[in-house]
């Protein structure tokens, strides 16, 4: 029984991180109709930035978070301008697919540049806080896990406030829901696109910092998070931010349960099978909505 609770706790932590990554994907998909495969690269960048700040300057985790967020935000905007914007409105090609591939290409470039610059060896980043927190008999969680979940949740809440209460936050939702009407309101769409990509990339970068102490920082650090984000995306559909968050937690918990009862090795394949079953019933994902291409 205690291992069950342990798994629940673990699942909630990973769920928070999945939410952090995938919510950015949802935002980008909602506004730009693009599946940003470069988000994994942003996780990667976040990890490396925090490592560099730590090993080079001895700066702690807070600096890592802020630095990673800033750097990945900037990269996000650049990627939007270079890989996505030129494809908008191109006739004779399927925008979603070409944007998928162009962001995929960006991800490849990032991973290999990292490999070139930093080498293949894993880099270690120490956890924010050492030690474990004991909850109930036999169930404990590391303080770092608590911090991870905490930061993730704070960021998600902040994002929610941003999207529903601020001028540009509402603007992002508007562009996602009704592009033409948004333009008629005077909402500058290019700026919104840049902002969306920047914010989403920053969220992924923050996830990268948080994950850096758990999994080492390496050029492949973005692969697994991207895969998980894609699985959450398929599972939940990319229709709404809230739906994505819920889906992320479900996947996190599901994964923890599968690891518990079948072993870690099987968590991904079983997860995959579960998703396939869900899709057979609801092809648009649990919370997905039928989308029409707008770009």
């Amino acid at each position, binding site marked *: 029984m205690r291992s069950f609770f342990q798994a629940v706790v673990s699942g909630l932590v990973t769920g928070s991180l999945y939410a952090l990554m995938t919510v950015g994907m949802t935002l980008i998909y909602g506004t730009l109709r693009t599946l940003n495969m470069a988000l994994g690269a942003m996780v990667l960048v976040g990890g490396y930035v925090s490592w560099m700040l730590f090993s080079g300057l001895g700066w702690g985790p807070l600096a890592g978070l802020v630095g990673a967020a800033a750097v990945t935000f900037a990269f996000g905007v650049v990627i939007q301008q270079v890989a996505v914007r030129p494809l908008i409105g191109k006739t004779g090609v399927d925008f979603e697919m070409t944007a998928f591939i162009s962001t995929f290409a960006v991800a490849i470039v990032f991973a290999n540049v990292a490999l070139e610059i930093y080498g293949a060896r894993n880099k270690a980043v120490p956890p924010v806080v050492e030690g474990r927190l004991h909850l109930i008999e036999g169930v404990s969680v590391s303080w770092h896990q608590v911090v991870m979940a905490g930061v993730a949740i704070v960021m998600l809440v902040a994002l929610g406030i941003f999207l529903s209460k601020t001028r540009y936050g509402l603007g992002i939702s508007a562009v996602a829901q009704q592009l033409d009407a948004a333009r008629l309101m005077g909402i*500058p769409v290019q700026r919104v696109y840049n902002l969306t990509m920047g914010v989403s990339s920053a969220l992924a970068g923050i996830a990268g910092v948080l994950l850096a102490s758990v999994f080492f920082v390496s050029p492949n650090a973005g692969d697994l998070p991207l895969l998980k984000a894609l699985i959450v995306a398929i599972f939940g559909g990319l229709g709404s931010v809230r739906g994505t968050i819920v889906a992320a937690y479900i996947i996190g918990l599901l994964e923890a349960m599968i690891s518990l009862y079948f072993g870690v090795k099987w968590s991904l394949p079983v997860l995959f099978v579960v998703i396939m079953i869900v899709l057979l019933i609801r092809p648009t994902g649990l919370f997905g909505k039928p989308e029409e291409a707008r770009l």
Partner: protein
Amino acid sequence: MLETRDLHAAYGQTRVLEGIDLTVGDGEVVIVIGPNGHGKTTLLRTISGLMAPTSGEVWFAGARVDGRSPDLIATDGLVHIPQGDLPFGDMTVEENLVLGAFPASDWRGRGQRLEHVYGIFPVLGERRGQRARTLSGGERRMLALGRGLMREARMLMIDEPSLGLAPVIVNEVYRHIGTIMRSGVTMLLVEENFSHVHDLDARILLLESGRIVREGTVAELEADEAVMATYLGT
């Protein structure tokens, strides 16, 4: 306020506007009447920048705006209330309205404008926390109009305010439009049906196959039987 010169527009190979010259003076109300599919909506979309014209010019508030991005034209004071309302479905009524005041200069005063709009459309006030996609047809129309009123508009363009609404609601919508007209806002309205507008004190343009074919006051056109045969009726 608004002037188009030999405006042409097309969707791909399909030509829609074939040389539109029209002007709307300050404080004037101009109504474009035409059957469906003849270019009314395209005209408005070309003016507001959602579409780029294939040739010709659009001048708004003394500046040339054809080919400019619609959000820039909107920030200059052009309010286009589009056909079909295009509400932000998942947002609440209040969020929809607030977005109507997006431009920086309007954003500051949005609280006041919001109360002003709730005053004109009390039903929106009642439903302010409701998601826009749960509104009825008439309520959505009010929302679209209200959203357009959230800004200081130099010119208001309304695309088929009567579309898809029951006659009783249409009357109410036009009552509001009449009030807006009387406040002195420059307006360009587009309608399919003559019957809704014959009370209004405005200059009428008849649009057919992408061209303006006649012009006149309501009285003049109603006296012309050929015109009435074409443009009266649904």
